[in-house]
């Protein structure tokens, strides 16, 4: 008897609750939304490592190539994931990309604005459109699916109509010459760590062109934006009050309102977030290509949502992670580029994308039940 009480006493002294079972790291990982995406990306890399390991896919040039594609998708997928955690959808992401593109190109080329002012103009338009999406959803109580589907058509149509009206065409080229010496454009158009790649080239560690410059010139801006946004979004979701409000707004709108969470404001800001992310995407692509195309970004909204879902976001809101969405984007980016290095016909990519999403949804549903199960 005395022995027993002593042992309990000693446990209490050590500051440990004796009823608290030691949770294995595996169990902690199982409760994280990004688990599926992490497993998926490891599988994808193992697969291509075996199938395409010796084809140049994983050379510096090849790696940057699939990272660039992943990063571009990732930028919008992270914003889409945050909005989904907040309980809403944005189907106008793709159209917003096209619209932002011409917001940059037309003022710069046809109206003689300095490039940086047209970039700021594009971001201002994004904030306005995101705000409009948000206020429509919050004030009318209509499903965001419908509101943003309408915006998908409105923006794409307006992009096409305005561009044709002003330029008589559907593409606006000629931006490349404006990038140099612009105070803002470099943010979206400069490869970083060029010195590193030059050095690696001089050491003959990476592939060179015939003139001796390295094939891969530096880390593309998309990758830097992608990493920065992933960290920023994760910090917001996990470490800030606003992050808690996002989870609460998506998890239970009425409950969150009743305890004083400004649900409307949270949702509106998240819609602005997706529109701004689309504009970052547009800046990078338009400045890289040197031209704006009215059809740019078509169907990107669905890819972004797919990446978010593969990353563990629930369609019903209140659950998910930015890292998960980033991994989802990496899976899609890697497969879409990797497939070129294999003997598989590229037509199969979409089949893979769909199958991946189905598996993810089934898996996520199972995890959600696990998480909320009474133990």
């Amino acid at each position, binding site marked *: 008897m005395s022995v027993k009480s002593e042992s309990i006493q000693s446990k209490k002294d050590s500051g440990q*609750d004796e*009823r*608290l*079972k030691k*949770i294995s790291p595996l169990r902690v990982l199982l409760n994280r939304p990004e688990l599926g995406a992490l497993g998926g990306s490891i599988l994808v890399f193992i697969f291509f490592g075996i199938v395409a390991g010796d084809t140049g896919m994983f050379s510096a040039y090849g790696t940057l190539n699939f990272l660039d594609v992943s990063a571009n998708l990732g930028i919008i997928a992270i914003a889409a994931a945050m909005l989904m955690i907040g309980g809403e959808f944005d189907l106008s992401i793709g159209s917003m990309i096209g619209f932002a593109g011409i917001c940059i190109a037309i003022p710069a080329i046809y109206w003689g604005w300095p490039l940086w002012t047209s970039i700021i103009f594009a971001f201002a338009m994004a904030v306005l459109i995101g705000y409009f999406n948000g206020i429509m959803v919050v004030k009318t109580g209509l499903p965001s699916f419908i509101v943003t589907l309408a915006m998908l058509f409105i923006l794409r149509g307006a992009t096409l109509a305005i561009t044709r009206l002003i330029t008589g065409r559907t593409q606006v080229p000629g931006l490349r010459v404006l990038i140099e010496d612009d105070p803002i454009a470099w943010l979206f158009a400069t490869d970083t760590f060029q010195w590193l790649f030059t050095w690696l080239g001089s050491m003959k560690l990476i592939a060179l062109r015939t003139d001796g410059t390295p094939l891969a010139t530096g880390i593309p801006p998309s990758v830097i934006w992608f990493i920065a946004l992933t960290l920023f979004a994760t910090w917001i979701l996990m*470490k*800030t*009050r606003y*992050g*808690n*409000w996002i*989870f*609460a707004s998506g*998890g*239970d709108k*009425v*409950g*969150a309102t*009743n*305890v*004083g*969470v400004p649900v409307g404001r949270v949702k509106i800001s998240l819609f602005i977030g997706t529109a701004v992310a689309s504009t970052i995407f547009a800046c990078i692509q338009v400045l890289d290509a040197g031209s704006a195309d009215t059809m740019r970004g078509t169907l990107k909204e669905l890819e972004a949502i797919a990446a978010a879902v593969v990353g563990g976001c*629930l369609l019903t809101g*209140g*659950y998910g992670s930015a890292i998960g969405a980033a991994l989802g984007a990496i899976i899609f980016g890697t497969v879409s580029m990797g497939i070129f290095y294999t003997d598989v016909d590229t037509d199969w990519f979409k089949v893979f994308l769909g199958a991946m999403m189905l598996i993810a949804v089934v898996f996520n549903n199972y995890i*959600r039940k696990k*998480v*909320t*199960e*009474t*133990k």
Partner: protein
Amino acid sequence: MSEYLVQFNNISKFFGKVIALKDVTMKLKKGEIMCLLGDNGAGKSTLIKTLAGVHKPDEGEIIFEDQKIVFDSPRDALDIGIGTVYQDLALVSLMSVTRNFFMGREPQKGLPFFRTFDIEKANTIAAERMGQIGIDVRDPSQAVGTMSGGERQCLAISRAIYFGAKVLVLDEPTSALGVHQASMVLKYIVKAASQGLAVILITHNVHHAYPVGNSFTVLNRGKSMGTFQKKDISREKLLSMMAGGEELDKLEVELKEMDRIENN
């Protein structure tokens, strides 16, 4: 200073032509549990929402600590210390105990623009508060969905108290619970009252209300049928008032009458 912590005097609320509440008066002292009883459609929900600041009363006044109060929003009611726990509890089952406990009022630390949610502090407080009511939260980062119904109810009440409720308005806290869980919640309510809170317990279950209540207000078709101290009224009397006992008595007489006619 009057002996009452909060008084609701002659509260009326109309929705168009519908009289949802008419001249309802309730007075509560510190440490008192008043049970608000009524059948479906008696106006309980409207009354709660009026107390919580969701609806503005069309007539009547609310006096809190001797001051006349007008609520413009639920936030105002919270700020002066009327904490309402709705039937849906305002808990998000996918979120952790801690994140739910501090939802909307997260403690922060750090410099402006880099302020973070002080999750360690929040975890400690949540676990401590839940411990005080005898709920052993093994891990405050576990999802609320893993808790039992009674535990969730206690979490919601505990949250309201932690954030400064002096008057606790509880909407059907035991309606969805089994006997054991219900008694756990009721015990906690008594404990809260003994610490000086005034509690308004809304329920249609006399068996849950009678053991814990000090006084009983019966609501019927938007009107108060009076407030009774426990010593003045029996459980059976309450039950029959709530169910519209007179109507049932009348029905019984009518049935007997029909019976008599048929037999003749």
